[in-house]
C-alpha cells in the first residue's frame, strides 16, 4: 500500500462523512423517526457547504471571468466620455433627474426606451443560444450571484483555511483565534458588500462628485440608502444564502431547463466509464471496474453541495469545478482525464451503444436562436444608425375640436412639440400641407416669430399653432381631412413630418 492510495481512501471517507453522501453498499436503509419531537424542526436547516479549492483549467477560467466582470462593474462609472459643455462626461450614466441614459456614444431619451428593450431581448436570446449549446454557462461563470459567492468563498478560505480546516473551526469551541478569524472574514465581506453598493450608486450620478459628497457625508440620503441596501443584499446573498439563492430563489434554473436538449454540452459524470465505482489500490488492475475511485473530490469541490454523479440536477449551476477536481485525481491515479467533463446526453447514449461520441452544435434549435439573434441585432443596429435627432409631435385641440371665426372660416388649434436631440440650438420652420387653402398662424403674443421656432440644445420646444380654412373650403371637407405638419431645420434642412387631422362641421 502506498501513501497515495491511503490518502485517497481517507479522502473518500472524509467526503462520505462530511458531505452527507450516503454510504454505498449493503448497509441497508436507515430509519428516522421524523415525527419525534427532536426531529421535527420548524424548518429544515441549511447544511453548510464547504467547497474545497481545486486547480485546473476551469478554476483558472473562473478566476479570469471573476476579475473581468468585477473590473467592469467597479470601474465603468469612472470612465469618462466628452459630450460637450453642459452635458455629463460620464461614459455610462443613468441620469434620472434629466431623464437621459448615456452609454458612451449613445444618448437615450425616455421615449426611446425601446433600445433598452432591444438590448434586453438580445441578452435573452444570447442566453438562450449559449444555454442550448453549452448549458448553464451564465450560471456557472458570469452570474453576479456566482461571481460574488466565489469571491466571498475566497475570502472565507483566506481567513479560515481549506475545507477541512473550516469544518474543524466551525465545530471547535469559541476561542480568541476563532473570533479573530470569523471577525476578519465578516469585516472583509462587509467591505466588499459596501464597495458593491457604493459602485452601484455611481451609475446614477457623476461618480467623482458623488464620491466626494459621500466622503464628506453630503450626498443625498437616497445614495446612502441604496449603498446600504446593496451592501445588505450582497452580504446576505453572497456570504450567507449562497447556493440557496440558485436553488430556491432564482427562476432561471427552471427556465434554462427548457433550453437544453440531448445535444447540449453539460457538465456531466460519465457513468459508463466511471461505474462500477469504488476505492482502488495502486498497482491493482482496472479490469472489471470503473474509473471512479469514489474519492468524493467532486462533491468536496462543489459550491452547490451536490454530487454530480447523481446525474443532471436542478441544483447544478455547471460551474465545472468538479471537472477540475476529478481531473486532478485522474492524473494521480494515471487514468485519462475527463471522467467528469462537458458532455451531451446523446454522447452518453452513443458510447453505451458503442458509437463514436461527437458534437452536434449546429441543429435546428441553435440555428433558430442564432438567426433570431442576428435579426434582432440587425434591426437594433439599423434603428440606432438611423436614430433621428429631430422629433415632432402634434396635439390637436380636443375641446373644442374647431371654432368658427368671425369671417366664417373654421380654425383648429394645435400644440406642436419639437424635440431637439442635438447639442446645439436649432431654428426650425413649421409648415402644413395636405389641405389646399389652409392658413397657418400663431397667437398674437408669438409676435414676429411667424412660423419659426427656436429650440435650445437637448430641449423640447412647445408652441401653439392655428390652422384655419375659409368657410366654403371647410364645408367641402365635410367633417375632417388629413393634415401634415412639417418641421424643417433651417440650417441643415433636416425634416420631420407628423400626420394629424383638421376638423370642421359635418354637413
Amino acid at each position, binding site marked *: 500500500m502506498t501513501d497515495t492510495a491511503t490518502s485517497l481512501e481517507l479522502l473518500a471517507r472524509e467526503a462520505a462523512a462530511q458531505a452527507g453522501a450516503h454510504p454505498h453498499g449493503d448497509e441497508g436503509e436507515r430509519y428516522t423517526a421524523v415525527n419525534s419531537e427532536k426531529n421535527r424542526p*420548524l*424548518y429544515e436547516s441549511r447544511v453548510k457547504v464547504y467547497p474545497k479549492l481545486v486547480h485546473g483549467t476551469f478554476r483558472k477560467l473562473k478566476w479570469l471571468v471573476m476579475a473581468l466582470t468585477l473590473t467592469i462593474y467597479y470601474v465603468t462609472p469612472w470612465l469618462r466620455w466628452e459630450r460637450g459643455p453642459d452635458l455629463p462626461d460620464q461614459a455610462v450614466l443613468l441620469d434620472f433627474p434629466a431623464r437621459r441614459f448615456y452609454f458612451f456614444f449613445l444618448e437615450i431619451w425616455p421615449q426611446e426606451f425601446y433600445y433598452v428593450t432591444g438590448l434586453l431581448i438580445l441578452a435573452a436570446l444570447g442566453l438562450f443560444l449559449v444555454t442550448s449549446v453549452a448549458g448553464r454557462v451564465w450560471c456557472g461563470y458570469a452570474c453576479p450571484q456566482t461571481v460574488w459567492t466565489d469571491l466571498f468563498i475566497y475570502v472565507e478560505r483566506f481567513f479560515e483555511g481549506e475545507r477541512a480546516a473550516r469544518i474543524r473551526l466551525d465545530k471547535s469551541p469559541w476561542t480568541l483565534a476563532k473570533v479573530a478569524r470569523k471577525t476578519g472574514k465578516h469585516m472583509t465581506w462587509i467591505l466588499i458588500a459596501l464597495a458593491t453598493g457604493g459602485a452601484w450608486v455611481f451609475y446614477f450620478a457623476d461618480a467623482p462628485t458623488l464620491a466626494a459628497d459621500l466622503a464628506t457625508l453630503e450626498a443625498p440620503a437616497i445614495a446612502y440608502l441604496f449603498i446600504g441596501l446593496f451592501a445588505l443584499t450582497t452580504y446576505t446573498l453572497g456570504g450567507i444564502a449562497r447556493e440557496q439563492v440558485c436553488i430556491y430563489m432564482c427562476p432561471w434554473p427552471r427556465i434554462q431547463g427548457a433550453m437544453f436538449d440531448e445535444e447540449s454540452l453539460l457538465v456531466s459524470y460519465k457513468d459508463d466509464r466511471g461505474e462500477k465505482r469504488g476505492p482502488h489500490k495502486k498497482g491493482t488492475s482496472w479490469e472489471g471496474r470503473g474509473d471512479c475511485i469514489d474519492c468524493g473530490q467532486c462533491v468536496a469541490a462543489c459550491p452547490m453541495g451536490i454530487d454530480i454523479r447523481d446525474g443532471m440536477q436542478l441544483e447544478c449551476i455547471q460551474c465545472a469545478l468538479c471537472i477540475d477536481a476529478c481531473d486532478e485525481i485522474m492524473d494521480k491515479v494515471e487514468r485519462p482525464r475527463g471522467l467528469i467533463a462537458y458532455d451531451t446526453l446523446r454522447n452518453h447514449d452513443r458510447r453505451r451503444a458503442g458509437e463514436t461520441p461527437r458534437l452536434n452544435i449546429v441543429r435546428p434549435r441553435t440555428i433558430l436562436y442564432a438567426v433570431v439573434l442576428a435579426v434582432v441585432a440587425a434591426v437594433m443596429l439599423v434603428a440606432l444608425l438611423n436614430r433621428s435627432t429631430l422629433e415632432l409631435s402634434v396635439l390637436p385641440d380636443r*375641446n373644442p375640436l374647431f*371654432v*368658427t371665426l368671425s*369671417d*366664417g372660416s373654421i380654425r383648429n388649434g394645435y400644440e406642436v412639440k419639437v424635440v431637439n436631440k442635438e447639442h446645439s440650438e436649432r431654428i426650425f420652420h413649421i409648415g402644413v400641407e395636405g389641405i389646399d387653402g389652409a392658413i397657418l398662424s400663431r*397667437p398674437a*403674443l408669438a409676435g414676429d416669430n411667424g412660423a419659426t421656432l427656436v429650440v435650445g440644445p437637448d430641449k423640447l420646444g412647445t408652441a401653439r399653432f392655428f390652422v384655419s380654412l375659409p368657410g366654403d373650403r371647410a364645408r367641402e371637407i365635410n367633417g375632417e381631412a388629413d393634415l401634415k405638419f412639417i418641421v424643417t431645420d433651417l440650417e441643415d434642412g433636416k425634416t420631420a413630418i407628423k400626420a394629424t387631422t383638421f376638423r370642421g362641421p359635418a354637413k
Partner: protein
Amino acid sequence: MSDHKHKDEVTGVETTGHDWDGIRELNNPLPKWWLYTFYICIVWSFAYWVVMPAWPYLSGGAWTYTTGVIGYEQRNVVTNELAAIAEGRSETMLKIASMPLEEVASDPALMEVALGAGKAAFGDNCAPCHGSGAQGGKGFPNLNDDDWLWGGTLEDIRVTLTHGIRWDADGDTRQNIMMAYGRDGILTRAEISDVVEHVLSLSGRSEDTDAAARGASIFADQCVACHGAEGKGNRELGAPDLSDHIWLYGEDRASIVQTVSNGRSGVMPAWGGRLGEGTINALTLYVHSLGGGE
C-alpha cells in the same frame, strides 16, 4: 383537540387529531421565518398603538381616540403640503401679479406657470359657464374664436375679468343694454320682422329685399347708436358685430327675433375681489392664449 396523537401512515406526520368525515389534517409546523415575522408584527403593533393614533374611547359622552405620542394627523400632513406648495409658488405668483402682462408673456418660465395656474383657475371658476375647453354655449361666449365683444387685448381681457359684465356690485363693471323692443312696445311685430330681415341682410342672408329695405330705416333709428351704421358693432359699448358669422344667441331668424323682442343682458361676475391679482393675471394670459388673442 384530542389528547390522542394520531400519525398519518403515508407521511409519518402527526395530525391535528380532528376527524372531518374521515379527513384528517397534517400538523406541519409553520416555517421559522414566518413565526418570527408574526412575533415581530405583534411587537410592532404595540409600539404602533403608542406612537400613532390608534384606539377610540368615550370621553365626556363623545367619541375620541388616542392621538399617539408624536401627534401624527393626516389632515396636518395635507395642510402642510399645500402650504409648502403655495410657499414654493409664492415668488413666481408675486411676479405674475406685479409685472406687466407683456413682460410675463415674454418670459417662457413665468408663462409656463401662468398658463398652468390660469388653466386651473379657469376650471374652478369659469368652466361652469364657458365650458371646460372655453368653447362657450348659447349666451356664453366661445373664448377660442377671434370675436371679442369687449376687446381681445391682454388689458381688455383683464378689465373684463376684474370688473365683470353688468355686475352691479362693481362700479366699474362693463355696462350696456340691449333693449326689449317687442316686450316694451317700442316696435311692432311687423317692424321687428323687418329689422330682423335687415340684420340678416348684413351677413348676406336676407330673402326678402323689400322687408330688409323697410327694416334698414328702423335699424337706422333704433340700432345704429350702438351697432353702427353697417352693423359692425362697437367695442366701447360691447355691441356685437352683426355682419360676422358669430352669433352668441343663435344665428337663425327665430333667435334673432327673440333677441330683438326681449333684449339680452348676459352677466359675468366681477372676479376682482374674489381672486387674487396673480390669479387674475394668470387667467388673463390663459384666456388670451386660447384663441390667440389680439
